[in-house]
């Protein structure tokens, strides 16, 4: 897979001017700042970070749905190549058929007055992709079937559908124009876990079947871990770490990534392995701190971090991290992990012993349902 990447981004910045604020001076929101990023063809690329870190803005910039302040952006699917930063109207129209967005909120995104068929067909009609109504219907039926919606569903209005079904309608609508690149922005956040798993599996299947490239934006690291092959972590407009998924979750190098990972509440009620508690909140992008953007919350910050901004550094194969101290911290993290593991092993041994004692105390017949999907905590 040494192809040219589908999306290639260099030093991308997106700033918003904000009205109001002080007299005369207009505060600027630096939503995305100096981002470098390659997204390979066929990749399921995850983008994570706290609220306000700039994920949506970056996604929209790649779709050319926000004005770009600075930087280079190239799209190359082998058939067409576009310089997105300087793309012209006609090309932009073509690009819009190749790049699509799946909306964040399945409840807000669907017009209540249109039938599901019309909702899915709309992009085809707006972009003038199909030549006849028959062809439109054909395309709608085809994509609906892929998204597990039947003909009966197509005649109804969206209010008659559950959250999971609505999400499948949004997906069908985004994919009907047969795009190559899809940005899915928090498209499972509003869903319950049982339905969420279903939608994620569907996205993966469709991606493989249609050879799509996904940018998958989410708060939820455990979801990203399961569906994405590559992950970028964003903080206050910057990418702080990028790596193949397994590498990132096995060896997080940036203090922020580590804190994010350890903040995920464990399913084990006795888990006390949290080593990293993040205090405070993400600073405002109108007034970012100097130096490393994470320095106000980083427990490893030193003087250098307060003046000099760290650049993305190559840590391992395809693994990049932007922290002045990542090399010295490798050992610190290893020691912390070892200590946490020792604690949890001890605790597990203690609980196992207690359970055993309890079980031999009274062994009342406890019946269980026959099938039990793998369900133990950790």
């Amino acid at each position, binding site marked *: 897979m040494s192809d040219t990447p589908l999306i290639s981004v260099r030093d991308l910045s997106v700033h918003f001017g904000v009205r109001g604020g002080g007299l005369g001076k207009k505060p600027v929101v630096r939503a995305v700042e100096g981002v470098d990023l390659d997204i390979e063809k066929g990749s399921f690329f995850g983008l994570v970070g*706290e*609220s306000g870190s700039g994920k949506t803005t970056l996604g929209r910039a790649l779709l050319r749905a926000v004005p770009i302040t600075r930087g280079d952006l190239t799209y190359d699917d082998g058939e067409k190549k576009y310089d997105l930063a300087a793309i012209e109207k006609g090309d932009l129209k073509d690009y819009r058929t190749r790049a699509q967005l799946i909306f964040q909120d399945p409840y807000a995104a669907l017009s209540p007055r249109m039938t599901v068929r019309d909702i899915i067909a709309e992009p085809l009609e707006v972009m003038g992709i199909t030549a006849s109504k028959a062809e439109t219907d054909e395309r709608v039926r085809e994509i609906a079937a892929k998204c597990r919606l039947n003909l009966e569903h197509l005649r109804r209005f969206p209010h*008659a559908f*559950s*959250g*999971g*079904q609505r999400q499948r309608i949004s997906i069908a609508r985004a994919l009907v124009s047969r795009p190559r690149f899809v940005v899915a922005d928090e498209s499972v956040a509003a*869903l*319950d*876990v*049982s*339905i*969420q*798993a*279903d939608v*994620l*599996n569907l996205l993966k299947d469709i991606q493989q079947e249609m050879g799509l490239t996904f940018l998958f934006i989410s*708060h*939820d*690291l*455990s*979801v990203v*871990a*399961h569906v994405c092959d590559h992950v970028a972590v964003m903080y206050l407009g910057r990418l702080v770490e990028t790596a193949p*998924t*397994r590498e990132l*979750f096995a060896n997080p190098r940036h203090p922020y990534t580590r*804190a*994010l*990972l350890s*903040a*995920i*509440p*464990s*399913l*084990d*009620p*006795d*888990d006390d392995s*949290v080593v990293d*508690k*993040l*205090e405070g*909140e*993400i600073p405002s992008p109108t007034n970012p701190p100097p130096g490393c953007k994470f320095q106000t919350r980083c427990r490893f910050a030193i003087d250098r971090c307060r003046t000099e901004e760290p650049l993305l550094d190559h840590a391992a194969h395809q693994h990049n991290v932007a922290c002045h101290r990542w090399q010295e911290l490798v050992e610190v993290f290893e020691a912390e992990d070892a200590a946490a593991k020792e604690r949890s092993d001890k605790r597990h041994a203690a609980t196992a012993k207690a359970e055993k004692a309890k079980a031999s105390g009274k062994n*009342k017949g*406890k*019946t*269980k*349902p*026959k*099938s*039990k*999907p*793998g*369900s*133990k*905590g*950790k």
Partner: protein
Amino acid sequence: MSRLIDVEHLNLQFDTDEGRITAVDDVSFSLEQGEVMGLVGESGSGKSVTAKSLMKLNPSNAVYGEQTRITLHLEDGPVDIMSLKTSSDLKVVRGGAISMIFQEPMASFAPAISIGDQMVEQLQIHSDMTTRQATELSIEMLARVGISDASTRFRQFAFELSGGMRQRAMIAMALSTKPKLLIADEPTTALDVTIQAQVIDLMKDLVKDFHMGIIFITHDLGVIAQTADKVAVMYLGRLVEQGPVREVIRNPGHPYTQGLIAALPQLDDLDKPLVPIPGDIPSPLERPSGCVFHTRCPVVIQGRCARDIPQFTQTREGHQVACHLLDPANNDQGTKTT
């Protein structure tokens, strides 16, 4: 421990344009003082309306069942909540003995009144504090939940605070009246994991310091595991399983609970495929007969589950599951009718 609240046979229906829908069906549970109960279930399963029933906060199209009894045990004796009719009757519970943190953080603060004024007003409804005393207590509570520079924040409006801070302010307001029972409806769902972790820690401290009961509503089982003593699982308006949190998470007995846990993406095994619960949640207008889960249950007993409503069976101390598979007396009966 002493009993704080008993909910018995809670039935709740809503009159809607499309007919009368059942939102809660025969739900019973109780809570001790200082105990944290997690209430989990899919969207629309009836978690919020169950919680609101404890204060009779549901809108006027709500119809409570005749069998429904909710008893709050206060120092001066038990209060029969269903018998409270007027809003002045209900003052004892609403914002008094019971406080609620709502699912929509913006909805809990009026946009045009400062946070402080709202806190003071609420305190004065429920006590005879002077404005000065109420102000002092409010600022103290804001500081207590970790808001720095509390006296400045006191004068600000909700929209001027970040999401995490707004959530803290809401908790401060809910706690200022020193409630016996705090209901937290998805207090962390809209928050980032790092802020969520802070709020979870805060809630844990508060239980210790104030010794109140908490009902914690969420669909995140990880959050439940980290905060609750016991957990109740709802599906389509029914309680399908309840018990101590360790028990339920380690030995889930109901196929729905098992499905919920299996569907969670786990970080320690990235190769494990995500296992969804098959099918869609039925519409409230097409409530399944018998076991409400039978349309999606992977181990459904043909003939029996669509017909009979399963009752709670005790699997272990305090752990109850409502599923025919756990009811040995009825099992053979079920297979006959297939």
